[in-house]
């Protein structure tokens, strides 16, 4: 019985969420006395694939070709590799590719599927594991009734666990034909840091009063190497793009650090960010509900505090 994990990359560079998925697959395989197998698709160099050895993945199938991938092709290729290797568990990151390919693979394999998973199984017969539910307002203990299962992870919950091994790479080919969706173009923000997998996030709300005041937010984010986010009304008014809206009806994130500036902390906002490891709140109102969900708080005017904070962090970064 093997555990197959899909390894995502951007232009040949293995993504951090893929290292996390590989870590999870290794731990899962240990727990279930199986072996973990990785799959990379497209043009990824050998030295890049070898990095997976740092998280304990011993074997990787490298599927050549496929300059353009979408979730339908990923699912088709994964099904092909899974069948040839008798794999019964299929692991994906909670990225757009993972969330797209996972359900399709489950149907192809006659498998069950569970998403937003945060831990390895607590018991293995039957497989029982924990997923996020109610947009982070709760957790559900799930029991899987199938022999085959797709597991889609919640990003940044399990984490990357180091364990050094040698990686054996096997180059294979797989058709993965799927022509039903025709790709026209990508429009990717290449300079910023992608919010769903950011480790540090600087977020601001209506307290900033206008789009023109986001300069200091972007500066702080740049100093930290953080992604930027915003509350829902901010994106509804058009001060920031919709892709920055976090919360119950936006993107749910769990970075290591979430700095909330001029955001009141409404229940719908908290739902999408409360599983961040450390939360800092900067708000002028000591009664703002966000302080109850925060680890550290500054009661003060963002227009004074944020530039000072930026300078202080710059100072330590040299």
């Amino acid at each position, binding site marked *: 019985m093997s555990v197959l994990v899909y390894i995502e990359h951007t232009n040949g560079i293995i993504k951090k969420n893929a290292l996390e998925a590989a870590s999870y697959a290794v731990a899962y395989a240990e727990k279930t006395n199986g072996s973990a197998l990785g799959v990379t698709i497209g043009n990824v160099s050998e030295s890049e694939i070898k990095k997976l050895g740092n998280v304990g993945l011993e074997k990787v199938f490298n599927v050549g070709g496929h300059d353009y991938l979408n979730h*339908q092709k990923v699912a088709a290729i994964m099904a092909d590799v899974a069948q040839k290797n008798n794999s019964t568990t299929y692991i994906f990151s909670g990225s757009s590719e993972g969330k797209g390919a996972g*359900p399709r693979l489950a*149907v192809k394999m006659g498998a069950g599927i569970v998403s937003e998973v945060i831990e390895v199984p607590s018991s293995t017969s039957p497989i029982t594991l924990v997923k996020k539910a*109610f*947009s982070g307002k709760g957790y559900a203990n799930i029991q899987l009734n199938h022999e085959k299962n797709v597991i889609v992870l919640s990003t940044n919950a399990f984490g990357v666990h180091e364990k050094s091994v040698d990686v054996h790479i096997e180059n294979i080919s797989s058709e993965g034909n799927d022509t039903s969706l025709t790709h026209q173009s990508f*429009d990717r923000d290449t300079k910023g840091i*992608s919010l769903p997998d950011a480790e540090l996030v600087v977020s601001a709300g209506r307290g900033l009063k206008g789009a023109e005041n986001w300069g200091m937010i972007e500066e702080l984010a740049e100093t930290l190497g953080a992604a930027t986010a915003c509350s829902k009304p901010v994106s509804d008014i058009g001060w920031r793009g919709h892709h920055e809206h976090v919360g*119950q009806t936006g993107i749910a994130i769990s970075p290591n650090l979430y700095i909330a500036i001029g955001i009141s902390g409404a229940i719908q906002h908290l739902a999408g960010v409360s599983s961040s490891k450390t939360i800092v709140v900067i708000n002028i109102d000591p009664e703002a509900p966000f302080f109850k969900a925060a680890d550290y708080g500054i009661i003060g005017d963002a227009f004074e505090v944020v530039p000072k904070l930026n300078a202080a*962090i710059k100072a330590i970064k040299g």
Partner: protein
Amino acid sequence: MKILVCISSVPDTTTKISFTNNNTALQSNGVQFIINPNDEFGLTKALHIKEANPGTNVTVLHVGPNSSDPVIRKALAIGADDAVRINVEAIDPLQVAGEIAHYVKANPYDLIITGKESIDYNGAIVAHALGEMLGIPSVSPCIGLSINGSEASLTGVVDGGKEELTASLPIVVGGQKGLVEEKDLRIPNMRGIMQARTKPLNVVEASGSKEAQKVVNYDTPAPKAACKIVDANNVDELVRLLQNEAKVI
């Protein structure tokens, strides 16, 4: 054109979530159930397409018991033409997708709209599973859709950006904010509410799609320790805490 809009019924977003019966069920006393917010964007999009293409019919579909009827009626009041309820408890997204696929195979649609995710169970599974079961393309999360005859142009969300795609109908689309704008969302008016009472709500029996998983029990996140307040004139202290205590920078 025939459009199917799948809606789930979820606790209102302001609900403080708690559990009952040894944490095996949601405490639903006093909880207001609403159309899943992602599905509202899809429903409004379907109505926009209907208005631009006379003769279009919009059906809403829900998999669940009759306790969901008020939510289905609300979708009718917003403007859907008719409704279908598949009469079975929705336990798992694959079972739901299986029931919807079974219905659609017997009753074909040109366009099937779901939400990208149901905000209660957070599966993000139904849209793509349904596409696979029906052997048709699926784009989810989708933030742009235009239909030209039997061709669709779509904007899908990818990590860090978006992708423009085209496909031939039928397709599955998983909506969210952006498919239509927030300000375009419709609330039922009096006339809509009156009309909804007489619009058809067809109850069909389930095909018996098997659930692949079940919830053993629920948990709520552990409460946070008290927030450490740092003086606004001493941001260096905050930086020190983030560096040495939280170890995040």
